[in-house]
Every structure is written in C-alpha cells, then in structure tokens.
C-alpha cells in the first residue's frame, strides 16, 4: 500500500494558525496520509511568547519536504492584508521547484481563518501547481480538517492509491 504524503506548512505567531495547521494535519491523517508539519518563522515575531515553544517543536520547510510530499497544505494567518515576506519567499522557492519540474502532479490547499483565503489561493496558484478549493465547515478548524482530508483523498483518487493505511 502506497501512502499519500502531505506536508503542512504554516506561519503562526500566537498559535491560532498553528491550531488550523494541526486540524488540517489531522484531516490529512484521517485521509490516511503521512504528514510533516513545518513552521515558517516570522522575523517580526522574535519577541512572541509562543516563539520559543514553536522553535523547539518545529523545523522550517525544506526542499526535501516538498519533494517528499504529493500535496501541500498552506496554513496562512490572515492578520496581514498580503502574504508575509517569509511566506512569499517560500512560495517563490516552490515556484522555482515547479519550473524545474520538481512539483509535477502535486497539488495544494490553502487554509486560513479569515476571508483572505481567495487572495492567498491566487498567490499559491501563481506557483503553478493545482490548488484545490478549501472545504467549508462550522468553524475554521473544522474547515481546515476537512480541507486536509479532502486533499489527501484527492491525491489518492487521482493517483490510484488504495484507501486505508498501515501507519501508526
């Protein structure tokens, strides 16, 4: 049985978007995916109280993660009107990988707590990979979970993977 690999990349200063990222990761797991969680630190958040914990618990996204993953969840805070420089830089790195043919057949979904998802989705689509619409739910965490699950199931359906996994 071939697993679906999903990397969840998120940016969070106060824990709210981390919560969405975890929910999306759970959804991917419910969709029988293997997951990696990667945190993009914000330079402007160097004094944030959650920063030491997040620095301890997460590592930043690497090219090997995008190579490993068949699908990417991008959990983006909506505190800003536009993407943060760190997230824009990360998307630029994905675009370069895509241009090198390293992201062929991969897809993504954007989860966010606010109404900015369409704008962020367009920014991610500019990378060149397929961006699935986010699921809707009773709250943003539920929507994130359903989005993660739908992404994993989409990968499995389009790759012909079998349902159910043996991972623990």
């Amino acid at each position: 049985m071939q697993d679906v690999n999903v990397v969840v990349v998120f940016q969070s200063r106060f824990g709210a978007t981390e919560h969405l990222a975890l929910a999306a990761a759970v959804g991917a797991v419910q969709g029988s995916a293997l997951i990696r969680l990667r945190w993009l630190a914000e330079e402007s958040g160097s004094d944030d109280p959650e920063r030491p914990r997040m620095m301890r618990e997460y590592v930043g996204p690497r090219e090997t993660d995008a190579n490993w993953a068949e699908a990417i969840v991008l959990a983006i805070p909506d505190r800003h009107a536009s993407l943060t420089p760190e997230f824009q830089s990360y998307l630029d790195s994905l675009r370069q990988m895509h241009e090198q043919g390293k992201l062929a057949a991969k897809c993504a979904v954007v989860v966010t707590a606010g109404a900015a998802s369409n704008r962020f989705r367009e920014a991610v689509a500019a990378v060149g990979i397929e961006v699935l619409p986010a699921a809707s739910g009773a709250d943003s965490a539920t929507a994130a979970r359903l989005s993660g699950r739908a992404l994993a199931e989409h990968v499995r359906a389009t790759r012909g993977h079998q349902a159910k996994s043996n991972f623990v």
Partner: protein
Amino acid sequence: MIRIRRSSERGHANHGWRDSFYTFSFADYHDAAHMGFHSLRVINEDTIAPGRGFGAHAHRDMEIITYVLDGALAHKDSMGENHIIGPNEIQAMSAGTGIVHSEFNGSEERPVHLLQIWIEPAMEDVHPSYQQISFDPAERHGKFRLLASPHPGADGASAAIHQDARVYAAEVDPSHTLPASIKTGRAAWIQVARGSMAVNGQALNQGDAAAIEGETDLVFTGNGQGGAEFLFFDLP
C-alpha cells in the same frame, strides 16, 4: 511458558538528546522475532534531555499510554490538550481516526525518563480521546494498581482503552511476594520499570520483560536489594 526478554537484547538508539530502548521493533530497529506480543505493539523506554522532545507527529488507530518514571513530560495535541505529566500519573491517548501531538521534556534542567506503550485497539476509527490519571504511589505498593482497561468505571481512577487488555502498575518489596492470576486463554507481559525481582523464580532486572502464555498462577518476588516496580499487562 515464560519467555524472558532481557534489557540488553532490546533495540537501542542514542540520538544524544534521546536515549531509547525498544522492547519491540520500532523506528529503525526491526527484529521480525519481536514485533509485539498479542495486542501489545510497543514498549519504548526513553530518556529525553531537558527541553528536547518529539515535534508534532501523527498517530492513527492506536492506544498510547505513557508512564513517567522520573521528570516531567509536556504534551500538546490537535484536540487542544496541553498538559504536563510526571511520576505517579499516566497519559492514555486513543488515536482513533487520527491525532497530531508533540511530546517534550517539560523541564529545562532535568531529563525525563518514561515508558511509552502502544496497544493495538480492537476497533478502528474510534473518536480520538485523551485521558490523564493520577494516583497515590501507595496504591501500587504491594498490589496491582489498575491503570487502563476497556471498562474502567465512572470514577476516573483509571483510563479507558479500546482493547480487552488491562494494564497495572505494581511495586513489590524486597523478599516480599505478590501473587497474580491469569485467566485461561489470556497472556501476560511483565515489564520491569525499576529494580530487580523474580516471576515464578525467574530473575528479572530493570528493563527486562517476561512474556507469559499458558500459565495461570504467577508469583512475583522482590529482589533482596530493593524490590521492584513493574507493569503487568493482562492481554487477550
């Protein structure tokens, strides 16, 4: 029949920040002869350096019990649970349809020493849950203190797991004995957490284990040097 699994025979991985002994195959340690015992799938003995731990990772369809011997373990998960557990406490987590959690040493000064146990559930896709149980160490002194079972009762004294297994902690004093029985058709696993003891005359030291099948009467005897603390798994 009683088969002894010596501490020194376990898998071992020392990553600097984490020193782990694997009773059964786990991570990079693979031994086809030691993939688990009945529904017991994992017993890892971990010593984690101050401030270090396991970043966010996922589990599915597994009953995960953590028994802290020394120090403090900080747990944070996708269900919103955020706790620190220490000695005389257990954490029991039903991963069910899927959870994501992190586990870190809750101290910046002292290592945390723990046993992590995975039991395969009898059913898949249960709703994920988290339980934390505290107990007085006197409750395991010279007797078996139930930690987890499928039907623990409403008093919250022990954790509920989705398997017909019972997990107990016990301490036996030097030269004292502690009898136990196993129902016909069931099996038992003994894991020595601390000290030295014997089960039906067979000596066990810290980290040793005993796989027991086809026996109904057991006698645990504390070693004269200081007795022992151990976990007793009654398994289908």
